[in-house]
């Protein structure tokens, strides 16, 4: 039994994880364990079957009750297999008598129902402890991580029972329905002896199936506890460290250490391996005496005057008084003078009678009903008014939220002067073309074009083009184009809109050249413009003139 040979991954596990390791162990060594269990307990089964069937529960109980005896060879196998020394069936059976009778009587009587039986078996069988030493050892082992031991006993029992019922119902489900066997009769009737023997055999099978797992789980719990208490994993790791560093030189010394630690499992290392639980109790009790002397006191005078530490009998009242006395000393208190106005309560009596009468009168006054309804109406009116006010106050916001209202058109005044020129009707002559022509002939082409331009602007403004004070000449042309464009709104466009646009564009260009560039226009073009003005802008007059010409 050498830790180097161990076939488990040694590390401290949680309690339930240790149980799971037990399940894995049972899985790996299931076959040898089951074989030994079957061989060892076969005589018992035969005895159980020989017992008359009307006492069938005795046989069932007997098989179950003697389980601890047949768990011992399983533990023997496991304890060797863990250290890579799996015994064969023959040697196990040969060794069986050597451990079968250790404390057997105790195991089969009052320890039989111990819930931690699976975990405790190793102490008895592998460590060979008994009596008080065994109890001490169990106390150490059970200090932690032993709660699953009880649970696996419970689960094991349940498993045995359920497996038994499960197997019976499996067989029953293969019986054709035509045979019409009563379900309850299978369990409870004592008529058929074969059936009862079958049930006992099934019970035995259920025990066979659960025993390896139960023993392995208990052993694993025990092992885990020892791994934790004795730090086997650290032991292994430290040995590896040393081995790696001086393989050759001090192999002799190593061998000695090895031999010292051989047989960790069976030899009783219990004495050195007690977990040191007392370490954790912190010396908090030191403070207690001091606190007691503090609270020892009799009365205020005594506590102040007498030196501390004298023991004085005291009761609750004197202690209270002492505390009060101390608290009233000037160090702990201060006096305040508070002045405030208070109602004079004596004069209040008469008015209170008056008010009482008044309220009594009011309580019975029927006019209140009418008043109340009036008040109600008033209140409702106020509510309505408030709502209305709110609607009015936020009408724009509401409109913006729900209704699209066209913003009210701001009426703008039509400009009177543009580009520093008068464009009122009064400032314009009656016949624009003629006046312009006259001015042209007089040689004042600037005045003539200015007149044409002013008159054109006047016409534009009054035909609805929104020319404002800040617009430039170019923008005026642009605005006019937009205003009369075919895609434009419902403005009624005159039939000669294009002609007007062309005319105005040309006039604007020439006027700009003259006004800002001081370039005299071509006389012919200027005269043409003068003539065309009436034609272009005043349809009727143009026609009339055309007719006259």
């Amino acid at each position, binding site marked *: 039994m050498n830790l180097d040979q161990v076939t488990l991954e040694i590390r401290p596990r949680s309690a*339930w994880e240790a149980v*799971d390791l037990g399940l894995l162990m049972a899985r790996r060594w299931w076959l040898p364990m089951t074989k030994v269990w079957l061989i060892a307990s076969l005589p018992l089964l035969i005895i159980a079957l020989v017992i008359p069937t009307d006492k069938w529960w005795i046989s069932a109980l007997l098989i179950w009750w003697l389980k601890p005896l047949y768990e011992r060879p399983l533990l023997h196998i496991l304890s060797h297999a863990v250290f890579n020394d799996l015994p064969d069936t023959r040697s196990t059976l040969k060794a069986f008598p050597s451990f079968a009778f250790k404390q057997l009587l105790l195991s089969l009587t009052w320890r039989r129902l111990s819930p931690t039986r699976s975990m405790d078996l190793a102490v008895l069988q592998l460590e060979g402890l008994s009596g008080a030493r065994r109890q001490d050892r169990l106390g150490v082992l059970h200090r932690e991580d032993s709660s699953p031991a009880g649970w696996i006993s419970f689960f094991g029992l349940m498993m045995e029972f*359920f497996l038994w019922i499960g197997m019976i119902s499996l067989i029953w489900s293969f019986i054709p329905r035509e045979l019409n066997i009563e379900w309850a009769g299978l369990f409870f009737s004592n008529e058929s002896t074969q059936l009862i023997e079958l049930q006992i055999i099934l019970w035995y099978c259920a025990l066979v199936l659960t025993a390896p797992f139960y023993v392995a789980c208990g052993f694993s719990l025990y092992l885990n506890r020892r791994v934790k208490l004795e730090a086997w994993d650290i032991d292994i790791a430290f040995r590896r460290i040393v081995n790696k560093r001086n393989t050759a030189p001090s192999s002799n*010394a190593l061998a000695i250490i090895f031999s010292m630690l051989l047989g960790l499992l069976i030899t009783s290392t219990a004495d050195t*391996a007690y977990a040191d639980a007392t370490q954790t109790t912190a010396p908090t009790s030191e403070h207690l005496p001091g606190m007691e002397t503090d609270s020892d006191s009799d009365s205020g005078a005594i506590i102040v005057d007498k030196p501390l530490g004298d023991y004085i009998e005291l009761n609750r009242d004197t202690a209270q008084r002492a505390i009060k006395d101390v608290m009233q000393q000037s160090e702990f208190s201060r006096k305040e003078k508070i002045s405030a106005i208070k109602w004079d309560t004596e004069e209040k009596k008469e008015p209170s009678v008056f008010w009482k009468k008044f309220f009594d009168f009011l309580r019975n006054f029927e006019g209140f009903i009418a008043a109340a309804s009036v008040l109600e109406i008033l209140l409702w009116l106020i509510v309505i008014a408030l709502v209305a006010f709110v609607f009015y106050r936020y009408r724009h916001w509401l409109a913006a939220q729900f209704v699209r209202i066209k913003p009210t058109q701001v009426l703008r005044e039509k400009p009177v002067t543009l580009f520093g020129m008068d464009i009122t009707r009064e400032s314009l002559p009656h016949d624009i073309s003629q006046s312009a022509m006259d001015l042209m002939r007089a040689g004042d082409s600037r005045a003539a074009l200015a007149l044409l331009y002013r008159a054109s602007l006047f016409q534009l403004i009054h035909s609805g083009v929104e020319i404002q004070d800040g617009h430039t000449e170019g923008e005026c042309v642009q605005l006019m184009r937009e205003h009369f464009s075919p895609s434009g709104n419902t403005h009624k466009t005159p039939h000669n809109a294009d002609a007007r646009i062309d005319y105005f564009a040309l006039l604007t260009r020439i006027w700009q050249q003259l006004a800002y560039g001081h370039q005299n226009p071509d006389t012919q073009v200027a005269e043409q413009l003068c003539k065309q003005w009436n034609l272009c802008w005043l349809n009727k007059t143009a026609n009339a003139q055309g007719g006259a010409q």
Partner: protein
Amino acid sequence: MLLDTRQSLETPEGALLPLTPAGFGVRALAQILDILIRFGITTVIFIVLSLLGRMGIGLALILTFLLEWFYPVFFEIARNGRTPGKKWMGIRVVNDDGTPITFGPSLLRNLLRVVDFLPMAYLTGIVASLCNRQFKRLGDLAAGSMVIYDAPPLAEPSFAVRGQLPVPAGFSTDEQRALLAFAERSNYLSAERQSELATILQPVIHAKDPVIAIKQMANTMVGKQ
């Protein structure tokens, strides 16, 4: 091959992800707890809704049905694989590859609970879980899920020794970890066992008091004074 409960999944990056599948014992306890919780809720539902007469009973039956079937699914999805019972026992459900359980597998494994329950008390599930290394019941096998232990919370180490000592050169990570484990678990070891263990290392560390020396090395590793 050493027998171990812990199984390591290897990620594509080559990192080992240690998972510890939980066996039927701890899971049975978790299930018992969950059953008790469900029983409590069902009782309250019936008491309250029976005040509404027959309609109330009908509603209570529907609610009980939903509770019975979707209680584990809900908690496994919403609580990272832990129903209240599992949380109590420190276990949780994950996918095969260690990722958190998702709706599909959770639903499947919980619907197949009925199969695992047969013929009674999860006998099929227990037998199935003993037949594979991940302790999977049939529902887990079908859904590709498994139940693992949560990693225990790490405790603040306290070695009850002051001072630092350098770790000898050439100690590998595993070897340093062994030193640290010695210091961390020395609270649970008797003084005799401590010196017994520390003496093993004496040929390597050559210290006056190997126990204190190892703890001081541990102080160095965790950065304590």
